[in-house]
């Protein structure tokens, strides 16, 4: 451990050798964490590195299986959320923990309501929250219903909740994943302010620019263990990235871009596509793009800028409000999910647990999901054919364990994703839509999956890649488009794209202009 040693006296949090299992998954392996009082400490690592689990343990949501937690020098191992809150530890979850049918004020005071033992003093609650809003700078109307708030406002309510409980230690899990750039800037302003007012902050993130911009110290986790600890001022983005991944990473990624002539007829062509979202009227706003055979078009962007809605509309889960979608020349704008698949659309969904797999189905069954009509004779499933297909795919994609009768629930994330990819690549397809293809997947499987995508590209398939990982986009894409606020704001040839170039577009700081 490359530790910057500190005296134990000024530590707000001290975690020693924590282990945590979830079934067969070893989420934390002898993880350590030391957080200095009055600092912003980044807790960084790739998806699945164990950051969130560690924070849940600190906040009392989960007990550790082994190891000790100290807060302000007191051993609090295995405490409850109520005890954690009383001791001034507040957590802002990645998925908001707000009751949509209650007002802002009610959400903030919930669990520590003003009033007597029985009656709830609503007027007092509103006054309390309004004064907290004034002192913290977290602007939000105490009277509004939480269901009506924007994402940024909802997050402010989450932070207000912790401050209302007198939190002196604030744990934030990926707070910027869902925020727009001005909201992110606001958040940093508020966090610096509360730090200066005497609060310790732990910030979970995997975004390097955030780490370098606002934190005082950095703790890096990899595969459940703590692997490095550094002072932000003395570190470089390359150094942090190396610690996160465990090997040298060239942030300027090597490109192996294929050049496809712009004259080639696109395999997938989308024109002026507009899609309604759950919260916004135009989650996808007049998007046009074309993917040609033999190329990978990467869509970069901060999550929540319309990518999911765009994917849903392409695959057929969500109806388009306007615009058109053509696959190999055929208009599929109104076609069903199955008709699109039959027309040659393969799809790696962004959420394999919700969309991609049926966890209680076997590997063999999952390998034919969406292809069931090709694996049956008459009404009946062709079990021999299903089994033969499974054995072949398990070998070809090195899926482990190798017994196709096992339920995919018991597989590791990487092997589950291999099942999805094996199935999609075994279709007869001309266009592959790959969404977050390596999310929650171990490093070995990432390489494997990237190779599989490149092979498909080289075999003349058109691939639309959507990923929140900019490095993945840069590694795989031949062309790169940036999505922001429901629009494609710019597009680059791979050779012209770097993190530095794309960044301002992803954060909405720049629009258009540079389009090649």
């Amino acid at each position: 451990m490359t530790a910057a040693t500190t005296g134990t006296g000024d530590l707000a949090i001290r975690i020693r050798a924590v282990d945590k299992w979830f079934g067969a998954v070893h989420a934390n392996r002898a993880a350590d964490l030391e957080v200095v009082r009055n600092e912003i400490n980044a807790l960084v690592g790739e998806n699945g590195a164990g950051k969130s689990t560690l924070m849940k343990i600190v906040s009392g949501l989960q007990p550790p299986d082994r190891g000790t937690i100290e807060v302000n020098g007191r051993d609090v191992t295995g405490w409850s959320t109520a005890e954690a809150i009383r001791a001034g530890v507040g957590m802002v979850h990645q998925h908001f923990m707000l009751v949509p049918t209650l007002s802002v004020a009610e959400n903030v005071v919930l669990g520590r309501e003003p009033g007597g033992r029985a009656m709830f003093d609503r007027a007092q609650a509103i006054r309390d929250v309004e004064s907290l809003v004034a002192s913290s700078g977290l602007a939000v109307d105490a009277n509004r219903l939480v269901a009506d708030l924007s994402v940024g406002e909802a997050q402010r309510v989450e932070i207000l909740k912790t401050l209302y409980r007198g939190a002196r230690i604030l744990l934030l899990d990926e707070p910027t994943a869902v925020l727009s750039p001005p909201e992110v800037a606001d958040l940093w302003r508020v966090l610096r302010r509360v730090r200066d007012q005497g609060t310790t902050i732990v910030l979970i993130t995997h975004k390097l620019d955030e780490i370098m911009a606002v934190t005082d110290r950095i703790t890096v986790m990899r595969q459940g263990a703590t692997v490095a600890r550094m002072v932000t001022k003395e570190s470089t983005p390359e150094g942090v990235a190396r610690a996160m991944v465990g090997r040298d990473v060239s942030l300027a990624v090597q490109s192996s871009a294929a050049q496809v002539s712009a004259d080639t007829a696109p395999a997938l062509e989308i024109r002026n596509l507009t899609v309604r979202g759950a919260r916004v009227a135009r989650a996808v706003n007049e998007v046009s793009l074309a993917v040609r055979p033999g190329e990978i078009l990467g869509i970069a962007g901060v999550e929540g800028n319309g990518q999911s809605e765009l994917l849903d509309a392409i695959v057929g889960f969500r109806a388009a409000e306007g615009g058109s979608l053509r696959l190999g020349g055929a208009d599929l704008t109104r076609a069903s999910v199955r008709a699109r698949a039959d027309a040659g659309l393969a799809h790696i969904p962004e959420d394999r647990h919700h969309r991609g797999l049926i966890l209680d189905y076997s590997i063999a069954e999952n390998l034919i999901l969406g292809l069931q009509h090709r694996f049956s004779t008459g009404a009946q499933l062709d079990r021999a054919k299903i089994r033969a297909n499974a054995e072949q795919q398990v070998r070809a994609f090195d899926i482990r364990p190798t017994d196709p009768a096992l339920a995919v629930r018991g597989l590791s994330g990487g092997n589950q994703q291999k099942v999805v990819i094996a199935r999609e690549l075994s279709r007869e397809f001309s266009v592959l839509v790959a969404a977050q293809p390596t999310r929650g997947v171990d490093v070995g499987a990432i390489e494997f999956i990237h190779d599989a995508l490149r092979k498909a590209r080289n075999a003349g398939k058109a691939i639309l890649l959507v990923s929140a990982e900019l490095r993945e986009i840069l590694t795989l894409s031949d062309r790169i488009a940036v999505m922001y606020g429901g629009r494609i704001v710019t597009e680059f040839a791979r050779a012209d794209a770097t993190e530095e170039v794309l960044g301002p577009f992803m954060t909405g700081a720049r629009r258009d202009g540079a389009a090649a």
Partner: protein
Amino acid sequence: MTLLLFLSQAIRIAVPYLFAAGGGVLAERAGIVSLSLEGYMLGGAFGAAIGAHVTGSAWAGLAAGVACGALLGSLHALCTIRFRADQIVTGVAINLFVVGITRFFLQLAFDSSSNSPRVAGFGGEGAGAWALAANPLVWLGILTMPVLGVVIYRTTFGLRARAVGEHPAAAESLGIRVSAVRYAAVIGSGALASLGGVYLTLDQHQFTDSMTAGRGFIALAAVIFGRWDPKRAGIACLLFAAAETLQIQLQGAQLIPSQFVAMIPYVLTIVAVAGVVGRSTPPAALGRAAD
């Protein structure tokens, strides 16, 4: 037909609905499905008969009936909260269980398969307005929904129950003991709903086999039609009771078959959940066990 007669008869019919629907609102707002209202009522009715028979006092009957209801609520709570049993199945099972256990003990205690002996009741005899006004349970029934409104919207417990019914994980993360809130709501629901059965027994001065006759489900219909809100559910109870009263008073006229009047609550409820006129949306975490 005088208005007073109509009103007093409607209220007489509405009182058990108000108690049971109140119980339903309480439990469902905290996220626990209440298919067992019928069972709570029947249990309360039987408890009241035993209590009043043994002591000769209607008040003791009331206490015994409520105790039975609370006990059944505890059973429901134990299964669904501690053991995370499916709430719908549990509700159906409790209804079956109560029908059986009341029949069994009816046989054991009174050696009858149909009814208990005559027991004490409240207030005067007959169906008149005066007898109605002398019955404290009638006043309690009328007060149920207004009081429940205060409990749910104005007390700390109510705020927490609503939070637990909508988003238990959020409540949990704030240190609220989700299970404790749900236990309180479900046991309270059993006690409150059982008053509906207590009222029936004491009003009719005896317990008869399966005497609640589906009233618990009409109350459930009122809860859903009333969109899980005490005031609206109360109005739904009064509406359903008024329709029944009308049907009884028009019986001689044979305008509409009684079966079709009896259907009104059920049809309205289906219309309400189908969203044809203003969708009826349940608490978000209704039916889901907290992790």
